[in-house]
């Protein structure tokens, strides 16, 4: 399946993008060609020039109403193609860090396409202070989604001691199942998502039943189990790639939405609803943990499994419940994440380390710590793009994790214990 226009939804900045589509061949000889687009709209009247390696100009073209330019070349060889930045409309500029001129070889008879990535003009760029609320909000949404996955991971760790490196694959599972129900079976996204969460919960319970419970019974060590989770993660990622392919694909619903301004920030309806869902679900988890029998039992098992068992708690039942709930929460996180970023086979793997950062930051094995830690990680990741390049934001969040472990190894809400 191919998507000519990629909907950049829920992303940091509404980045305008220049797509280059292969234009119709005009001459039989060598050409340099492309289509200038800004956020899907063609950009007209931009001057493109081509020079040889010696600096002699060999051709010039102005983009037409479809944004297309085609420049015929005298012979194969190396050419420099430049975009005259002065002729760009005011609100458009070459994307930061990219050059307005590209040097490239052209082979015999080649109709070579050239890409000039355009972005929002830096001439109207907002000050850091103006961007802060928006980034903080995006970080909050991201943090809440991470928290959904992190609570499950933390509960599983708390009750069984298992560090589950395959948790990211549970996140992906939710997104893939929702894609299956939504796009392939044609259900509307809301019932599709509900079905997907349900299916993820069932599969989570199933995973515990056929894999982890037998391993616990067998007395396999925790480190051995940890290595098993890595094997499982590799296996599942390969399986997802095999079934789904390597491309990113959107859901059928809620793809293109306009953000509406609320005070200093702009938010799309789907982001607002995703946020609301996260808050309600997380409050629900907190209520269950604090007020219900099964929640108390879960905390008891986390605290001391042997003591919990001897006081009549069915530890295996608690662990099964935790797996079912953890998988459902992770699945939901995957669905909400894919709503913003599109579905891909490594959706969960990409956030796994941030989820771990959240869990560790909050204190391994404490459900509320995971929540706090995830929010910190989410907000930090987005807000840090004010200072560091966006491509390094995940590295920044992981660096903070290491720094906090230096100062407060037990995490924000963790109990200090001497370990050596």
């Amino acid at each position, binding site marked *: 399946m191919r998507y000519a226009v990629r909907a950049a939804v829920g992303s940091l900045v509404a980045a305008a993008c220049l797509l280059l589509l292969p234009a119709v061949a005009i001459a039989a000889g060598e050409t340099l060609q492309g289509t200038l687009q800004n956020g899907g709209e063609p950009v007209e009247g931009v001057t493109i020039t081509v020079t040889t390696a010696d600096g002699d100009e060999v051709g010039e073209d102005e983009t037409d109403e479809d944004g297309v330019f085609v420049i015929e070349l005298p012979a194969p060889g190396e050419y420099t193609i430049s975009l005259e930045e002065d002729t760009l409309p005011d609100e458009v500029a070459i994307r930061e*860090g990219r050059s307005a001129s590209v040097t490239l070889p052209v082979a015999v008879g080649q109709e070579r396409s050239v890409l000039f990535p355009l972005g929002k003009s830096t001439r109207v760029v907002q000050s850091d202070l103006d961007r802060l609320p928006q980034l903080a909000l995006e970080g909050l949404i991201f943090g809440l989604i991470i928290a959904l996955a992190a609570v499950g991971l933390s509960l599983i760790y708390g009750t069984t*001691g298992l*560090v589950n490196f395959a948790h990211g694959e549970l996140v992906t599972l939710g997104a893939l199942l929702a894609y299956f129900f939504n796009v392939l079976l044609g259900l509307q996204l809301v019932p599709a998502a509900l079905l997907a969460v349900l299916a993820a919960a069932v599969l989570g319970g199933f995973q515990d039943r056929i894999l982890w419970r037998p*391993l616990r019974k067998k007395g*396999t*060590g*925790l*480190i*051995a*189990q*940890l*290595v*098993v989770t*890595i*094997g*499982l*993660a*590799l*296996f*599942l*990622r*390969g*399986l997802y*790639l*095999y079934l789904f392919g390597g491309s990113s694909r959107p859901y059928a619903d809620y793809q293109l939405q306009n953000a509406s301004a609320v005070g200093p920030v702009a938010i799309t309806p789907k982001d607002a609803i995703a946020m609301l869902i996260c808050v309600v679900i997380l409050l629900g988890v907190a209520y269950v943990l604090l007020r219900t029998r099964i929640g108390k039992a879960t905390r008891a098992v986390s605290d001391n499994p042997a003591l919990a068992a001897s006081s009549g708690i069915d530890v295996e039942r608690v662990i099964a419940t935790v797996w079912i709930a953890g998988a459902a929460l992770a699945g939901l996180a995957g669905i909400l994440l894919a709503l913003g970023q599109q579905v891909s086979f490594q959706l969960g793997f990409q956030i796994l*380390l941030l989820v*771990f*950062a959240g869990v*560790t930051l909050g204190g*391994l094995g404490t459900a509320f710590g995971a929540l706090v830690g995830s929010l910190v990680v989410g907000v930090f990741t987005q807000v840090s793009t004010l200072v560091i*390049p966006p*491509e*390094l934001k*995940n*590295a920044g969040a*992981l*660096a903070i*994790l*290491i720094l906090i*472990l*230096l100062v407060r*190894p037990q995490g924000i809400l963790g109990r200090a214990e001497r*370990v*050596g």
Partner: protein
Amino acid sequence: MDWSLIFSNALAAMVGLETVVFALAAIGLNVHFGYTGLLNFGQAAFLAVAGYGLAISVANFGFSTGAGVVIGLTGAVVLALLLGAPTLRLRADYLAIVTIAAAEIVRLVFRSVSLAEYTGGSDGQGRFSEGFYSINPIAIGRYGLGPLDFDERQTWVLSVGWTLVGLSCLLVFLLMRSPWGRVLKAIREDEDAVRSLGKNVYFYKLQSLVLGGVLGCLAGFMTAWGNTVVQPDNFSTETTFYAYTIVILGGAARVLGPVVGAAIFWVLLSLTDNILNQAKNAGYISDAILTGFQVGQVRLMLVGLGLMLLMIFRPQGLLGDRRELALDAR
């Protein structure tokens, strides 16, 4: 199906560059995981720091290859100290999380556009291996044995690589039968007991982390020279996980375990790739089940499944001794 081609490819994979690189990475990991019980999930970072240390100092700053190697080694030692100092006092799983995070940081930084001037961004950095090939004493020509056939450059890379593998194994063998090595193994079995004997467990763990990191660093040099380019995505977490599979396959805490593991690992991958591809071309497998592109995905699934099954049913691997290894978190 051309079975002779399949088997000669498998034989080439057994002694090939990837086997050398992963054997070295796994020997280092074996010191961490097999002998000391440290969960280092960032072995790829040691390879990356070594490879890039060499590449950047030679390509960007015009250092000699020897100086580049020293810089790479220093980088690995510094990385080990940085990773170990904060985490080795904590529970085993903290080291796991911090090392995997650090490896991703290293990869993302080397990948970053903002440093592309030095690192070449996601395309990687080349232009550094001339010094290595210029000291090649092997005359131009083709060398081989039976179905193996290499040119003088490959022969040089593989000779250096296997020599390093041999020396590393010898070093590990000598160290692990020394009193120092016995302390490491004792830490793996029971940290508190070692502490009660007055040993500085933290310091020993740090030394082990540095030693394994330096051995992993050799793998970084070999992959850099062998491919004549360092690319950030060659140092992803999957590299570390492959090395884990190799250590466990060969047998953790065995001197030759990683070497045997690496050879078998790459032979198995070569066999599955070649057999699947040939079966596809011969029409035994239809496109509906498997396209050419998906062969690599089947490989990923097989590695994952293999790692799981090994850990569950034969955690001691091929050469290991189950009684010696009490793999457990404390």
